[in-house]
């Protein structure tokens, strides 16, 4: 237990450290972008959050399939943890996206493909956790969480293509045309930083879920002594 505790806090701390380093480079070392100016620096947290949110949702999907297959509590805990951490990253993503929209287009919200998709994604997975909170029986809760996670994740690509078609007359994704090496470095560092932090969060959340589940696992009562004599078979 204590050894386990060490590895995940280690990863968490490493992530934190990397986040400081990456953000420092992103904020103060990397050059400002030609058109976006300083605002482009938001990308150094925004893009890693986006990558990791997708990654964590995908983990939730994979864990959900395993959980449905094996019915093991640990996979249910992993599914829940991944869905919840995904929601946290997704929320951050939306706020950063909104700030980005404000800074570049002058509005707090734009029906951009990625922004819209991530909002719908957030609602999808929030629904999963809402459903979960209403089910009392532990094994049914696990099954239903897994099912809802699978159903929600399969929708993500559909939503993405749909929004893209829906917004067919819409500006091409703005890609910075001068990518200095000093822009790639903080992006990569922060991507790993957020990944490590997400892993730490997922392990903590999964442990919490397993502890809760363990609390319910009362062992079978002692066998009661049979009563009566001659009639007993």
């Amino acid at each position, binding site marked *: 237990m204590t050894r386990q505790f060490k590895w995940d806090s280690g990863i968490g701390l490493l992530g934190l450290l990397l986040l400081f380093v990456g953000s420092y480079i992103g904020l103060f070392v990397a050059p400002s972008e030609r058109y976006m100016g300083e605002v482009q620096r938001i990308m150094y947290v925004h893009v890693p959050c986006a990558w990791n949110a997708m990654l964590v949702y995908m983990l939730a999907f994979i864990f959900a399939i395993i959980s449905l297959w094996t019915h093991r509590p640990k996979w249910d805990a992993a599914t829940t943890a991944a869905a919840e951490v995904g929601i946290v990253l997704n929320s951050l993503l939306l706020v950063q996206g909104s700030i980005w929209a404000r800074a570049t287009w002058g509005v707090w919200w734009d029906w951009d493909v990625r922004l819209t998709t991530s909002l719908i994604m957030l*609602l999808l997975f929030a629904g999963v956790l809402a459903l979960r909170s*209403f089910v009392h029986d532990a094994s049914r809760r696990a*099954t239903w969480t897994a*099912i809802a996670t699978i159903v929600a994740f399969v929708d993500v690509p559909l939503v993405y*293509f749909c929004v893209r078609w829906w917004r067919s007359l819409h500006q091409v994704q703005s890609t910075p045309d001068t990518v200095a090496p000093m822009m790639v470095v903080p992006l990569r560092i922060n991507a790993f930083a957020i990944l490590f932090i997400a892993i730490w969060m997922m392990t903590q959340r999964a442990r919490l879920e397993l502890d809760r589940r363990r609390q319910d696992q009362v062992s079978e009562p002692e066998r009661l002594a049979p009563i009566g004599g001659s009639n007993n078979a």
Partner: protein
Amino acid sequence: MNLIGQALTVVRKDLLLEWRGKGRLISVLMFGVVTLLLFSFAVGPDSTLLRAAAGGFLVLALLLSSTLGLSESFRVEQEQRAIEGLLLLPVDPIALYYGKTLSNTLFLMLLAPVLTPVALILYSVQLDLKGLAVLLGLWTLAAAGLSAPGTLYAAMTSRLQSQDVLLPLLLFPLVIPVLMGAVKSITLILTGDPMSQVGSWAALLASFAIIYWSLCGLLFPHAIEEGI
């Protein structure tokens, strides 16, 4: 074969129940009509605006009515736990799922002949017979797409205290592709389709329906493993 027979028995039973309880169908229809009316107040008496939004309003009326119909279809099952009576029989859960989904699809299709004329009149839209036929086809695809995850989630939430909140919460974000596809394609039918884009939207609706009919059919037996 046996699977299809069982599914059709479930559909027959559901249609009979729907027919006997006409009040339910009529209430859901009235609800749809009322929403159509309310939408026109939200936009105001500007007929150009209304005409442009007619397709969207029509699909929203379908979507809002669908949750009522879906939760109703399982309230009947839970009233005297008839669903448990079905689960105790040697019925394949997959047959049960497809039976319920098919009858829910048919129920939603029944809304079209009432809601479409009301929308055409209220929003003063002209539509020829061919357009009407295409619209019904799109409506069918949308109904099938809504019913597949809708039946799964309606079954899962049918014994939870807050089904009324939970079902739309789960279903609405999920069926956004259906909503967008149906709104875009039906609007094109109503306002003209110069670039003939209806086909690709119909393809989107069809692929959503196919994906979720298969996926939810696979998942439903797990969902009811320990009863509902």
